[in-house]
């Protein structure tokens, strides 16, 4: 399958990329890793007239801790995120997620910024970044602004970026003492989207959950925070009852569609299971287990 014709642009600086985006407007799409966009173009689900490739830009691929945040450059390849020592050592939820995105070949090209900006509820980073209370930086010729992840996903494949803005960085708050996280995903095979997946980041103090955020993958039209499940564990010690309550809440608050991966009832059930397992693992890690 051959994509529709387009004109390719390969700017060398972010300024040049922003100028191109400003001039070409709605006819242009940003090309990052291309692992979602190019398949969509081959199916002619997307037919942009212009592609602005960020692959030639320096300085947008990095993973580093700085001033209380893990900073991830938007063009960081998923494979490099997965291999980053700081991620493996201090950001368990992110390490879990990076390991199960698509397959190793796709991860060698796919980018973190692209995964988020695509705003596909079936992608894995949206749920993870919701659980982390991450924020993203958007740059435009007039300056930059920070968008909280809770405000970023506005619809199916829709995000809060304004015309002319480019997502340049993702920031995750550094973990506090007693914090732990985990991602649990059920997939039919490597490389498929999740049947359902749960991202949990929590903090345990004095044996009780003092903070918790939970994101869900591929069980809603817009990447979803499971606030009911969060409420079920906040202030609680992690017991069977509390886990069951969180699983039940997540099953109820998700909004899956039936497809080849399962019926609505099945997906609701599995979502509860994923939430339960992710909470258990996150709590174990908060207590110092790996």
């Amino acid at each position: 399958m051959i994509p529709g014709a387009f004109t390719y642009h390969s700017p060398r600086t972010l300024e040049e990329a922003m100028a191109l985006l400003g001039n070409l407007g709605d006819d242009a799409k940003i090309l990052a890793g291309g692992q979602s966009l190019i398949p969509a173009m081959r199916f002619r689900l997307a037919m942009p007239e212009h592609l602005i490739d960020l692959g030639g830009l320096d300085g947008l691929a990095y993973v580093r801790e700085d001033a209380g945040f893990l900073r991830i450059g938007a063009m960081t390849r998923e494979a490099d995120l997965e291999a980053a020592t700081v991620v493996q050592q201090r950001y368990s939820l992110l390490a879990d997620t990076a390991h199960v995105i698509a397959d190793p070949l796709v991860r060698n090209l796919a980018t973190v910024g692209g995964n988020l900006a695509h705003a596909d509820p079936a992608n894995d980073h949206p749920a993870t970044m919701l659980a982390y209370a991450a924020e993203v930086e958007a740059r435009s010729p007039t300056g930059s602004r920070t968008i909280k992840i809770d405000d970023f996903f506005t619809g199916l494949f829709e995000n809060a970026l304004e015309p002319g803005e480019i997502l340049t960085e993702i920031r995750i708050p550094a973990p506090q003492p007693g914090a732990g996280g985990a991602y649990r995903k059920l997939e039919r095979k490597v490389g498929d989207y999740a049947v359902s997946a749960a991202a949990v980041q929590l903090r345990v103090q004095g044996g009780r959950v003092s903070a918790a955020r939970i994101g869900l993958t591929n069980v809603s039209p817009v990447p979803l925070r499971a606030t009911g499940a969060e409420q079920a564990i906040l202030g609680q010690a992690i017991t069977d009852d509390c886990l069951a309550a969180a699983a039940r809440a997540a099953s109820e608050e998700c909004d899956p569609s039936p497809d080849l991966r399962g019926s609505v009832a099945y997906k609701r059930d599995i979502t509860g299971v994923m939430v339960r397992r992710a909470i258990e693992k996150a709590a174990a890690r908060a207590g110092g287990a790996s």
Partner: protein
Amino acid sequence: MSKRMITVDLNGEATTREVEDRTLLVHFIREDAGLKGTHIGCDTTSCGACTVLLDGRAIKSCTMFAVQADGKQVETIEGVAKDGALHPLQEGFWEKHGLQCGYCTPGMILSAKHLLEKNPDPTEDEIRWGISGNLCRCTGYNKIVEAIQYAAKKSKAQDEEAAE
């Protein structure tokens, strides 16, 4: 129709062609450069039959435009044997019967090559994980895993020999 000249270092040879912007890298390799060892299996970024190394990293050449590879190094299965001698991976697939129909083999070998460069002594689990983006419908993977284990062992022995 937008076209441009690109130069790709293809198996060590500067290859310059005029391509349409929308030409996929796999079509550039097969049709413009005439190297048919890189296969097209699924057309949906699923199967890995089109795997090549881009600047040393294993990628699906059906999910990249040729213009994105301008100025970069691409290695295909045709570039794996050196001076007429099979690469340890090719030898491993031969010795351990790592293929039946052979359609997935070029992609498997290039994925395995990247894997062994990152991790010269992988466990069985790491091998299975490393080739999890490449589908094989014949072998059930066991013989492919053995072939890669053979190559890892052979490469290690060759390195030790070279060091002596």
